[in-house]
């Protein structure tokens, strides 16, 4: 009797882990790819760098992964940040215009020199990130101190952000040719360079939330802010912090995205990625109402989102139909999270002992 109990307890531990469902979802998609797309798992070694569909999922998923890190913390406090896509565009515009200010003179100047930049790289990157931090700070002030509902507060920047980005670039698309900048999104060091960026941001965030008290405070504020207030937690500061941090993550994502397409395109960079980021966090099992969060599960969630996109492209779904197909898959994945559906599955799989 006792022997037969043991594996079921381990099994329960696995299924109750926050990573279980995201990983199941990811595995299902990859199994689908394995069966239907020949060569999907092939990995090529080109001059010491790895290439292939799987690597592409990681590389193209890096912007959503970066956003999901910040978004996880925001959602854990019971909020949401709709402005991350716009913040990406703003950061990209700042970076673009500092490298190639020709747009300000109202001319589209195609620089072809891969070594040309107007300002040094460190200034380009730090300015873009500071502006992104200011965007996050703005959201944080509105939510924490002005007590505006997060969805409404961040909607303001979501709408106005692209306008601001266009103002910065004088309404033009700015070409970026500076090669060191292109390395952010296109560079390869065995694996794509953007993955190291993700790993770095992830590690810092993990450290800040799990090796300081910040993570516990975020979860506490998200679960019950009144109890947290009575316990002496400064809920406003926590909220200000997570929105600001989310802005920073969006800024980094914006740099990677613009480096990838070699353009600061105020209209299209990060368009609708806020929704991908939110879905990644939800797939990672963090409740929209706030509370417990898992950064790692959100990363898997981001990969689920990217794997869906990549697979659809690979089996030849046309770009215009992609969103519709993606929605169907997302609905399926989200249904796995519904308590109703889980209960139903449990009842189905339960051994039929009763007669």
């Amino acid at each position, binding site marked *: 009797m006792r022997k037969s109990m043991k594996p079921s307890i381990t099994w329960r531990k696995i299924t109750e882990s926050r990573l279980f469902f995201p990983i199941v979802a990811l595995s299902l998609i990859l199994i689908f790819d394995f069966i239907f797309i020949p060569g999907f798992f092939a990995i090529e070694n080109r001059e010491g760098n790895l290439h292939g569909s799987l690597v592409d999922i990681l590389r193209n998923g890096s912007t959503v992964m970066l956003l999901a890190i910040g978004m996880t913390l925001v959602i854990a406090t019971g909020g949401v940040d709709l402005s991350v896509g716009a913040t990406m565009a703003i950061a990209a515009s700042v970076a673009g215009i500092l490298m190639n200010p020709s747009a300000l003179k109202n001319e589209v100047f195609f620089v072809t020199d891969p070594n040309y930049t107007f300002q040094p790289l460190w200034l380009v990157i730090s300015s873009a990130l500071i502006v992104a931090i200011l965007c996050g700070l703005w959201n944080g002030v509105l939510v924490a101190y002005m007590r505006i509902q997060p969805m409404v507060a961040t909607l303001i920047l979501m709408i106005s952000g692209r306008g601001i980005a266009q103002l910065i670039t004088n309404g033009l698309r700015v070409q970026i040719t500076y090669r060191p900048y292109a390395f952010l999104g296109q560079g390869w060091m065995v694996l794509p360079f953007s993955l190291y960026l993700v790993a770095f941001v992830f590690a810092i965030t993990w450290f800040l939330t799990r090796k300081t*008290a910040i993570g516990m405070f975020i*979860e506490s504020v998200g679960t019950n802010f009144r109890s947290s*207030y*009575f316990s002496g937690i400064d809920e406003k500061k926590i909220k200000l912090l997570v929105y600001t941090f989310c802005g920073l993550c969006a800024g980094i994502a914006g740099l990677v995205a613009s480096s990838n397409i070699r353009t600061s395109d105020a209209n299209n960079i990060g368009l609708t990625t806020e929704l991908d980021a939110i879905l990644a966090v939800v797939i990672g099992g963090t409740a929209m109402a706030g509370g417990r969060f898992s950064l790692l599960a959100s990363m898997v969630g981001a990969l689920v989102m990217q794997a869906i996109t990549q697979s659809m492209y690979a089996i030849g779904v046309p770009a215009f139909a992609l969103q519709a197909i993606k929605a169907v898959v997302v609905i399926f994945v989200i249904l796995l999270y519904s308590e109703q559906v889980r209960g139903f599955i449990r009842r189905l799989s339960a051994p039929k002992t009763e007669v």
Partner: protein
Amino acid sequence: MSESDQNILMMEGISKAFPGVQALDNVSLTLKKGEIHCLVGENGAGKSTLMKVLTGVDRPDSGRVILDGKEIQAKSPQHAQSLGISTVYQEINLCPNLTVAENILIGHEPHKMGRIDWTKMNALASDTLQRLLGVDIEVDKPLGSYTVAIQQMVAIARALYIASAKILILDEPTSSLDVHETAQLFRVMSKLKNEGVGIIFITHFMGQVYEISDRITVLRNGKWVGTYETASISRVELISKMIGRSLAEFDEMSKIKLESSKLITKAAILQAREFGLTGSIQPFDLDLHEGEVVGLAGLLGSGRTETASILFGAEKADTGSISMRGKLVQDYSPLGSIKRGVALCPEDRKAAGIVDDLTVRENIVLAMQASKGWFNYLNLQEQYEIAEKYIKLLNISTPSADQSVKNLSGGNQQKVILARWLATNPQVLILDEPTRGIDVGTKAEIQKLVLSLAEEGKACVFISSELEEVLRTSHRIVVLREREKVAEFSGEVDENTIIHAIAGSEA
């Protein structure tokens, strides 16, 4: 039997248990036609459960309800309404952005050719208000543009319109009304009474009980204490029935208390001077000494919780000052309080106490960590040590320190919150209703704990709706009435003196 003596409602032997609590134990209530019947009792007495049974929100475990001679079993509030039992709740559940007429007739709008007949609707609403309640207002204005009292009237009008109510339940309708508005509501109640409606009126204000009611039923701890003619029971008697007293209980506790009272030094830890908040609590002076338990006595709404709240800094006082060990306090915030050694176990355990998604360990270390700041993080091992220490000390029954606190029973959750505060090593511990809704055994444990904390030299403030509990644990008792500190007693006091002080009548 004259017609006005007819019972329109009889509730007999109603019992209802929730997991861990016997909310109602063999409670009876009769309501006559054209009677205003007050239902009184402290928190947890069972008033609202009794009304929930009547209106079909909860099913009783046993007992029966007889309406107009027929046994009924309301299945839902809607069903109860169709039977003639209507309820107006404390928080008005109407839509402030709809017009008065829409609020009264929503779901019952008159139609003309498939569309709503607005003219008829407004006329109907206006007629209902005038005829039934004698209230004359413009019914096409949004409800939100009227005072809370008028909104109450509209809620009543709606209740009466939908089904001609035989019974109207008013659940603390006056708690947010001023004197003038209350008078207005009372006129309406009298009018309905004369028309033969039976009214069950729940209130915490003793003055109003005597002003309007014909009879009073007192509940305490889920038990029926008695039903009295309002004219034949004095205020003092009524209050002592509500809060209960039993002289036989002074057993072990009084011994511990006597022992510990020897240890009280005259060193004041905390001194409040002219400390108050407009609209919340009148300015008061209060000294808390080392080793002393100060009980706050008073009825619900007398300002007990407000006093606790401003002493802790959860709400900012607007007059007066506090000094802590002779030093004037500058930072009136929960964090400031925790840092100088003041702790508050708040009244509402669910809403302001536990953080239910977090584990027992995290709940225990939360306040301590908050006072240490973001980066001075207690490592896991330290956290487990603290948690295990208090789980053992307070005898918290939990499978492990990693259990989500939401899976614990009420009493154990309360102990977890106590542990959270003890972990901050406070000098002043304010406990607001620490024993509410928990079983008798745990209650006694907590009372003893409070005394032993005092013995360690802490100052404790003990707030409870149960006077006997306050008497048993406190060395000194402060009495509050109508948001004002009215008296202070130290040494051996008999309960009568305190009940008189609470009631506001001369002994």
